[in-house]
Each structure stands twice: as C-alpha cells, then as structure tokens.
C-alpha cells in the first residue's frame, strides 16, 4: 500500500505498469555496461597485443577470449534477467549449499592452482573461478535472509547473516584470496546498512573488522610480500624495485596520459609492458595512458551511470528483496571499482581485485553480467 503511495508517479504515467516486464528494461544501465565491456576489450587488446606478437603468438589471443566471455556473459545476463527474481528467494538455501560445495571442491585436487592460489576449476581451455560466482550467489542468499527479517534486525539475525557469509569467506580465505573476501565484507556491510541493522551493530562490526585487520598484521598471518603490497601506497617512493614498483609504474602510466591521452595503441608504458598485470588488475593504467583524463573520466562516468541506475533500481524495487539484491550488487561494484582504480592511482592498497567489465578474466565478467542481470530483473519487475 505504501509502495503505491510512494511511487504513484510511476502508476500515474499510465500503462507503464502494464504489460510484459521486458518492456521496462533499463536501457541506460544496459548500454553503460556494454560500453564498459567494449572499452575493456579495446584496452585488453592494446595492452596484450605487442607482448603476444613478440612471443610469436596471435596478438588477438586475449581479445578473442575476452570477447567470447562477453558473449557468454550477455547470455547469462539475459537468462538471469528472465527468471523472476522472487523465485530466487525460495531457492536461496540451495544456492548457499552449492556455493559452499563449489568452494570446498576447488580446494580439493579438482581445483587447480595458479599464482599461489587454489582458486580455479580448469574446464577444457577455460578457467572458472567459483569465488566470482559466489559473489552473486551470496548476494541472493543474504538478500533473501535479510528481507525476511527486515525491520526486525536484532543481534541474532545479524549474527546469522554473518554466519551465512562467514562460511564461504572462510573457504575463500583458504585459497587464499584476500581481495575477494574484502568484496564480501563490503557487500555484507552494504546489505546490513540498508536492511536496517542498528548503528551499534554496524559500529560493532566495524570495530571487529578493524581488530581483525590489526590481528592479521600483528600475528604475521600475511607473507611479507603481501604486507608490502598492502602498504606500498602509503610510501610510494619507498622501494621502487619491489612492491612500490607496480604502483610507481602504474602512476607513471596514468599520469603520462595527461589530459587527452597518447591515443589507443600509442601508450609506451602500456605497449612495453612496464606495468605488470596490465590486462587484468591494472587495466585502468592502459585507459589512463592511452585515453587520458578525458577517457578515464568517461570511464568513471559510465561506472557512475551504472551506480546510479543500480541505486535507482534499489529505490524503485517493488519489495525489500529486490531492494537488497540491488544494494548487494551496488556494494560489490562500488567496492571493486573504488579499490581497483584507487589502487592504480596509489590511494588504496594493492589487492587482486578486477575492475568490473574492463579487466581481463572470464569468471569476473560472467559474475558481473549476472549481477547486472539481477538489477535489470528487479528493475523491470518494479510494477508487477
């Protein structure tokens, strides 16, 4: 009842609430995401082609693989979009179990290890990272649980929500994958905030989180190189040959782009691979160098559009579950964007978190498309 009162403007437009949900597709969000993906493809090509060619490989190798994943991602998005999100609430427990099982399995010999983390399933020529899928899955699980208890969120409910998140996070910590867990924490905080957790709960959680961070540092639970990476941004001039190297090179690349950039394929830092992991976590440096401030700001604007439309979808959602689904996606996107771009510019710690839609990586791309699928889903069913 209150809903119709508040969003009477929608109904007043007459006929908009009628008909198939797909008629209410959020075109702005969809186009923004497609633009981001296209920029990502271009930048991945730019930052990999010369190294590939130098190694005697197909320069379009990475481009083709990412394009394939983008195509699959679009299909996934459409599929997610057309399953009524309300149906997802009922299968939330199943989703949770599937997440946990998958995360357990990846730790067994079924999963494969790369770069020191046991985080992938190897399926033919493709890698699949269950923790990326777990991001979307846990949004659904937590949104389902919290929407049931919305407005009556007391200590026990908050603790239950924490427990639901803690199990997969524990498994992810064993891979280990610090970065993804940081995303989970952000997601949890966003959901608890909007779901109505009391300020003292949020305060307590923040305190526990800080204590945890301090404990991790103090108890020596991190390898020295991890510590170096995390703290390099505090002292970028520190040790240019080691951890600060990435940061230094990355800032040089971005700054060298200047206002208008050096032009696509013209970035020396990008083409000459001075920035490590440039097609994955450090893709923003290629954007910064080749497209300049105008290009990078455009990219931020596109992300801003995605944020705005997701936030708007959360506000417009017909029910609390829909709102919380959108908030979960918003929190994940926001954290990943801020952490990733901030890291390349030296204002956040270096953590292995991909830039949504832009970084090379199939699992991440599929998960992000699925997440946007959820938002579009909620958005187009706001009247039904």
């Amino acid at each position, binding site marked *: 009842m209150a809903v119709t009162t508040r969003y009477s403007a929608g109904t007043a437009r007459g006929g908009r609430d009628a008909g198939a949900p797909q008629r209410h597709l959020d075109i702005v969000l969809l186009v923004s995401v497609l633009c981001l993906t296209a920029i990502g493809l271009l930048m991945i090509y730019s930052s990999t082609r010369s190294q590939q060619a130098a190694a005697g490989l197909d320069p379009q190798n990475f481009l083709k693989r990412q394009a394939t994943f983008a195509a699959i991602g679009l299909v996934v998005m459409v599929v997610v979009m057309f399953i009524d999100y309300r149906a997802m609430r009922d299968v939330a427990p199943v989703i949770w179990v599937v997440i946990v099982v998958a995360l357990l399995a990846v730790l067994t010999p079924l999963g494969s290890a790369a770069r020191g983390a046991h985080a992938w399933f190897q399926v033919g020529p493709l890698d699949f990272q269950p923790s990326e899928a777990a991001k979307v899955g846990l949004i659904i699980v937590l949104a389902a649980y919290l929407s049931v208890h919305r407005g009556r969120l007391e200590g026990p409910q908050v603790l239950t929500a924490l427990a639901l998140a803690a199990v997969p996070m524990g498994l992810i910590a064993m891979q280990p994958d610090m970065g993804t867990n940081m995303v989970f924490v952000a997601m949890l905080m966003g959901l608890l905030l*909007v779901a109505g957790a009391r300020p003292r709960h949020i305060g307590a959680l923040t305190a526990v989180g800080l204590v945890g961070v301090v404990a991790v540092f103090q108890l020596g639970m991190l390898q020295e190189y991890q510590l170096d990476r995390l703290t390099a941004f505090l002292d970028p001039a520190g040790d240019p040959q080691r951890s600060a190297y990435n940061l230094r090179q990355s800032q040089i690349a*971005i*700054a*060298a782009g200047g*206002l208008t950039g050096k032009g696509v394929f013209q970035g020396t830092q990008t083409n000459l691979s001075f920035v490590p992991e440039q097609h994955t976590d450090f893709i923003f440096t290629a954007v910064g160098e080749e497209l300049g401030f105008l290009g990078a700001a455009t990219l931020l604007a596109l992300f801003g559009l995605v*944020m705005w439309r997701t*936030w708007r979808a*959360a506000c417009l959602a017909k029910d609390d579950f829909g709102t919380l689904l959108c908030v979960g996606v918003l929190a994940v996107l926001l954290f990943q964007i801020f952490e990733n771009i901030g890291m390349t510019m030296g*204002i956040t710690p270096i953590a292995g978190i991909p830039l949504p839609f832009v970084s090379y990586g199939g699992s991440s791309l599929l998960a992000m498309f699925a997440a946007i699928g959820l938002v579009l889903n909620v958005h187009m069913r706001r009247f039904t």
Partner: protein
Amino acid sequence: MSSTRDSSRLRLGILGVVVLSLFATLLARLWYLQVLVAPDFQVEAQANSVRLVYTEAPRGRILDRNGDVLVENRIVPTVVVDRVAVARDPDLLPRLGAYLGKDPAELQRRVDDLRFSQYRPAPVADDVRKEQVVYLREHQAEFPGVDVVQLTQRHYPHGELAAHVLGYVGAINDRELEPRRNQGYRPGDSIGKSGVELAYEQALRGQPEVEKLQVDSRDRVLRSLGKQPSVPGHDVVLTIDIDVQALAEESLRQGLETARQTWDPDQLKRFLAPAGSVVVQDPRDGAILAMASYPTYDPTTFANGISTSHFQFLQDPANHYPLNNRALQGLYAPASTFKLVTAIAALSNQAIAANTTIIDNGSIAVGDPPTVFRNAFGTAHGRVDMARAISLSSDVYFYELGAKLDNPRKPYPIQETARSFGMGRITDVELPFEAEGRVPDPESKQKLHEANPEAFPYGEWFTGDNINLSIGQGDLVVTPLQLINAYSAFANGGTVWVPRVGGAVRDVVHGTSRAIEGRQHSKAAMENGHRDAVMAGLRRVVSDEEGTASAAFAGFPLSRFSLAGKTGTAEVAGKQDTALYVGFGPIEDPRYAVAVVMEESGFGSSAAAPVARRIFDGLVGNPPGPVARVAGRD
C-alpha cells in the same frame, strides 16, 4: 511500516552519498595525476622506455707546426657480436674464436665488458683482415648475430716520435668520470690520459652521436627513434716541429748509448745513462719546438686498450718509468748551469763587478771552524773575472759569491733571482703533471726539516747552504723545462714566457682556426749591462779554447751562427753524475734554446754538450753526425 520505509530511504540515501564521495575521490585523484603533476611523470615515462646510445665523435687530429699529421684516426674493421645471439647459441663464440684465432674466453670478456653499450652489438675483435671480413659476410648463416663494422682508432704515423708530448687515450675511469659527468662523459668513453691528448681533451673530443632507441620493460630494443649526428673534434696544431723533434730524440738516444759505452773512472763501471730529456724552445715566444724524454713508449699500444702485462712493464721501476715526461716531471740539480743566476744576482746586488778578479786556488774555506769547498778535481784556475769564471766553470769564484750573498736580508738575492727566472715553480705549460721544483732558502729548509727530519736533519740555514746553491747544488732542483725557460728568458732580454706546445685549434666543421698566442709569465730581474757581462762568459763557454763546451762545438760555424751555453755536472748521492747542457743561438737574435739533461752520464761537457751540438748542427742545416763524446771537466 512507513517508519522502516523512511529509514530505508535514509539508508539508501547514505549509500548514495558514499557512492558519490568515493567517485569524487577517484575523479580528484585522476585530475591530480593527469593534469596537475602529469609533466613530471611524462619525463619519467619517457626515461622508462627510451634509451640513448652514444657513439663517440671522431677525435680531432694533432699536427705539428708545419701541418704534418702526428695523430689521426684510422678506420679499423671490427667484428661485433649481438649479445642475444651469444646467449641463444653458446657455441657461437667458440666457433668465431676458432675462425679468428682468438681465445673464446677473451671474446666472452669483451661481450661482458660494461664499457660497451648494452644496446649495441659488442666489439670483440679489432683490425680483422680483409679476407676475414669477406669470409664472415659470406658465411652469415654460420655466424648468426656476427657483423663487421668500421670503428676508428688512434693512429700515430710517426710511431713513437713525440710520444710524451702527444700523450695517449684510454677508457675513462671513475676518478676521471666523476668531475666530468655534466660535460657529457659516460663510462666507456675514451679520454686523453696524458700529454696533448689530455691538455686539449675538450677541443679534441667533439660531440658524440646520440641515437634514441625505444626499449620495452625488459630492455629489448624495439626501434630507433632517430639520431643526432656527431660533431668531430677540433684539430690541434702544435708548436712542435716534427723534424726538430726527431733530431732531438735521436741525438738524446745516441748520447745515452754513447755514455753507456763509456767508463766512469769514479765509480769504476760504465755509465748507466738510463734516462734523459731534451727541450728545444724558441726564446722569442716560448714555443716548444721539441720535447724529448727517454726512455719512451709506443702510444699505439694504448690505441686499442693496452694489455695488462705491457702496462705493468711501463710501470716497473726497473724500466725507468717510460711514461714519465722527464722534461717537465724530472727534477734535477742544475749544477753549473745555475751559475748564470748566481752571476746575475751578484751583479744586481753589487756583490761583485764583472771585471773584478779573484784568485782561484782550487778551494776556499768558509766559517769557523772552516769548511773547505773545492773545484772539481781541486783544479786551481788562477786569476778569474766573471766571464772567465763562467767559461771554465770556476766553482771557487761562485762560492765566493754564494758566501757574500748569504746575508739575513730577505729575500735572499740568489733565490730571488732564480725565482724571477721561473725556477722552483710550475711554468704553467699546458701539459699535465708538471713538477714544481725547489729553490731552497732558510724558510724552505726549515719546512723540509719539520716535514721529514730523517731526510733533512738540519732545519738551520748555514752559509754552506748558500755556497752549495751558488753552483746549483744542495736542495735546489728544477725541471729541464724550467731550465730552458730560464735560459730563454736570459737570451731574449728577460721575458719569462709560459712555455707552450699548442699553436692553434682548428674547427674542421666550420673551417675556422684560433691561434694560441705566447703568454708572458713575468720579467726576470736583470739589467742589460749585467746580461752583457754574463753573455760574454756564456759565449766563451762554446767558443773559447778554455770554454767547457768548446771541445763539443769544435768545428761548428760560430761565425755564421753564434752560440752561448753552459755545461753542468750534478752530483747525486749514490748515483753517477747527471750531465747537463743549456745553450742558445744565435746570440744577437736568439731563435733556438736547447737544454739537455742526461742521468748518470758523467760530465755535462763530455756527455750533454755533444748532444746539444748535434741538435744545433741540425738546426743550422749542418748534416748531423753521430754524437761523439769529448773530454771535459764540467
């Protein structure tokens, strides 16, 4: 319900604010990096990916005063090897070494040598034969990454001639590099190490070719971004006359060889005659026409990196330091050649008149208790005036002057005169490593004693010190260059020049030339009348039957080309005598001054004067015969 909705609105609002503030943060940082500080970072990005490769410019040539080339550059076919190819094919260097007849380990050392740019193929074998070049070109498949390029090398058409004046070049070392970093020198550059090569380094060097290469993060060269061509160095024209230089070197060598055949009745062995020096100067402007130092070395051995064993040979004391330029680094007691100074000092201070005579009994006693000072062999010369005292080199006459001029007045007259003639201080010649010498006085003696009481046990100045000084002995030491410069000053009427070997610097690119003018250092303290009196003595040294150099100059056309000169024989503790001769001519308008110093060679009149004679023969157009030793006493 509406309260939770309101709360929900508030909470979504908070979330929105968080989103906005984080995006604002990112945008601000982006603006800071890409707009505010971008220029600084762009320089760094450039430095990241662009490497500059320097190739030295052809060094300027060195020519003698008549344009005869003394040092030039020779094109040398050089085998170069790409480092990547060496890394890929471990058998490449052994194969190449086998073909060129070189040790593969030596080739590897050249590849690893940091003096060569890492962005260019490394030169591993210089001066390869033409048929080897052809073979390597034809068998490219067998030697991947091997190429032959043309490099330049210092070349000396006259061989060892004038080696000490010319100097040599070598790879710059850290000590030389540090002060020159901002002049564009880099590790591996060649630089003048001595002589004119060092003195005129700036003019000779030119500006290197600079090529910009783009590299990737692993320093692999991707492409050239263009180059700035080199500017060749300037040519330097010397005052040296290569014919006079050859005459001086050959005469000195002959003189020393002759001395080595001669019996030393004092030490009962042949003269060692290991080393010596000759300088020929134009007294009219201080220009050096020849500067010889023996033993010498072949600068070609430095042109392409000298071998360690040969460098050790050149540094071994047993070989008498061939790299030292004795003309300006050798320190010798001038002995009787110094009597010119004592005579001028005595006349200027009215200690004696030119025509005053004294009786030379062969010795004098000075002080209480008396110390006896003797002539060589105790010979009594009888009644001598100044001219005769000079011509037959009466020590007793000058002892008297030394004793008379030893008074506590400051400065001491002999010392003051010696210094006004340029002795005991560097002459300021452009050539490096010049020694200062020493004119002793009470002050310097005290200092020597304080600094080294063992070698100099007395700090006090005795009259005996002044007496020793009066005949050019004691603590007095000068370089052959100081000696010739003093005699040139006497010859030209008192102008002490800064001796020089540089005549002009020619910019070969613009075709311009800058002459290097003679520079007057100071004026010698000498009156014309006094000069005439001393000159009479110096003339008689050569021309008078009694003169100590008359035997050496017998038959010289003195009527056509009058000569003045002075012999000297320096006693050196523990060694055989140093032979000296300094002379100039023609007396009326001196054009040539010649100084000869020969270590452990006996009397100046016997050993050094004949060398000077041969040089003067050559200078006046007489066919120079072999250096013949003559009998003599001083």
